[in-house]
């Protein structure tokens, strides 16, 4: 560093800070615990806390400055994690409060619709309206159970055929597909089986399916769902199922891609919580699975999940390619 400009260790976008720091020192003032970013010898960015004191000669003139840089990268990471945890805890409390307020009226409306549909004196058109209302209510109930309620009955792993679970969920969203002229292609391996909690598998697929729908324009587009029995694509012998959900939507911008699995990161301004993909990846990882995404702007996005047949808690990877 000797003989080189101090700007060598300052990221280019922060170069304008240096004249301000020098002006402060020139006034004889100290800078204490200024949090900023600096570059290491290898060019890696690190968070630092900067303290700079002017060095004065016998007459009080400024002849230099003493700098102390503390690497606070870990500290910042811990603080960020804590902040995210607090946000999640707040969401949890909100969900618990909302659950009671939403699930009870939902139960009442579900029961009332059931009773209304039993009345055979109504006209054909009214029956059709009630059927649609019931289907829509199924969707709301499904979302409420997943996000607000408790999925206790599905928490234990069971051996199940995967294809009917996928078909049932596609049926839940069928009205939305029809309404938006979305063409849905299904290629489902009927023999594919998993030993896993059904509710959590359903939640993973539901999140990917909803994302695919949201990625499409308001009319038209294509969603392709593929389920295969197979092995992990990393070349290991682990057997399981591969699930692919592909859409012909606008794709994910390359600069957005690294952040899509972060909690509270969303590109769906009005409807996104920023929790869907984060939760999806958390579930897949919990059972030793892997999730990958490939996307091309204006072409579409493909999410692929490998879920091991025997759910094993442990290592997993989220891969991203654009």
């Amino acid at each position: 560093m000797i003989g080189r400009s101090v700007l060598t260790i300052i990221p280019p976008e922060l170069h304008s800070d240096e004249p301000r720091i020098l002006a402060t020192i020139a006034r004889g003032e100290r800078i204490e615990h200024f949090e900023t970013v600096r570059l290491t010898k290898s060019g890696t960015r690190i968070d630092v806390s900067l303290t700079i004191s002017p060095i004065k000669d016998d007459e009080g003139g400024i002849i230099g400055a003493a700098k102390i840089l503390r690497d606070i990268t870990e500290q910042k990471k811990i603080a960020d994690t804590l902040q995210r945890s607090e946000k999640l805890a707040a969401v949890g409390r909100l969900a618990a409060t909302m659950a009671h307020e939403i699930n009870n009226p939902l139960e009442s409306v579900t029961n009332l619709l059931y009773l209304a549909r039993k009345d055979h004196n109504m006209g054909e058109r009214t029956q059709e309206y009630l059927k649609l209302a019931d289907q829509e209510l199924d969707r709301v109930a499904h979302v409420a159970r997943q996000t607000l309620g408790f999925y206790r009955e599905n928490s234990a792993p069971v051996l199940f055929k995967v294809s009917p679970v996928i078909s049932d969920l596609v049926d839940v969203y069928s009205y939305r597909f029809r309404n938006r002229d979305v063409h849905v292609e299904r290629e489902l391996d009927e023999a594919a089986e998993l030993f896993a909690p059904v509710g959590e598998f359903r939640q993973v697929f539901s999140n990917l399916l909803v994302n695919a729908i949201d990625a499409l324009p308001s009319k038209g587009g294509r969603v392709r769902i593929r389920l295969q029995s197979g092995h992990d694509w990393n070349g290991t012998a682990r057997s399981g199922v591969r699930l692919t959900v592909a859409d012909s939507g606008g794709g994910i911008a390359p600069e957005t891609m690294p952040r899509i699995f972060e909690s509270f990161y969303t590109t769906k301004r009005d409807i996104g919580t920023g929790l869907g993909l984060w939760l999806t990846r958390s579930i897949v990882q919990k059972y030793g699975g892997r999730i990958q995404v490939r996307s091309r702007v204006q072409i579409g996005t493909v999410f692929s999940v490998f879920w091991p047949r025997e759910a094993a808690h442990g290592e997993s990877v989220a891969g991203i390619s654009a």
Partner: protein
Amino acid sequence: MKKPAMILVADDEPLVADTLVQILREEGYEAIAVSDGAAAVRFARHARPGIIVCDVIMPTMNGIDAAKAIREFLPEVHIILFSGQAAAAGLIERAESEGHRFEVLAKPIKPDVLLKHIAAAITA
């Protein structure tokens, strides 16, 4: 299929309780609603229902305490707990750690699903 003497529905939401009772009656069951755990215990002691469909989070006495109390004098009764609140999961887990076992369903539950559970409980 043999139908039970009576189904008791306990829920502090009157519309949930009343509509469930109506659905059960239309299916040919004898059913009656109460609005809290303490009332469920009182009524069960008097009427000795075969099946109890019981909300978990209720005023005065929660559904789990009510279920435990009822089982003391009515050990053969089949109890289905249902709740839409995550808070209920903690209560149920604690009761299970004490050796109590319940059938648990998440609200909102479709009536035909609940009816299947009831039919299974009767034939069990």
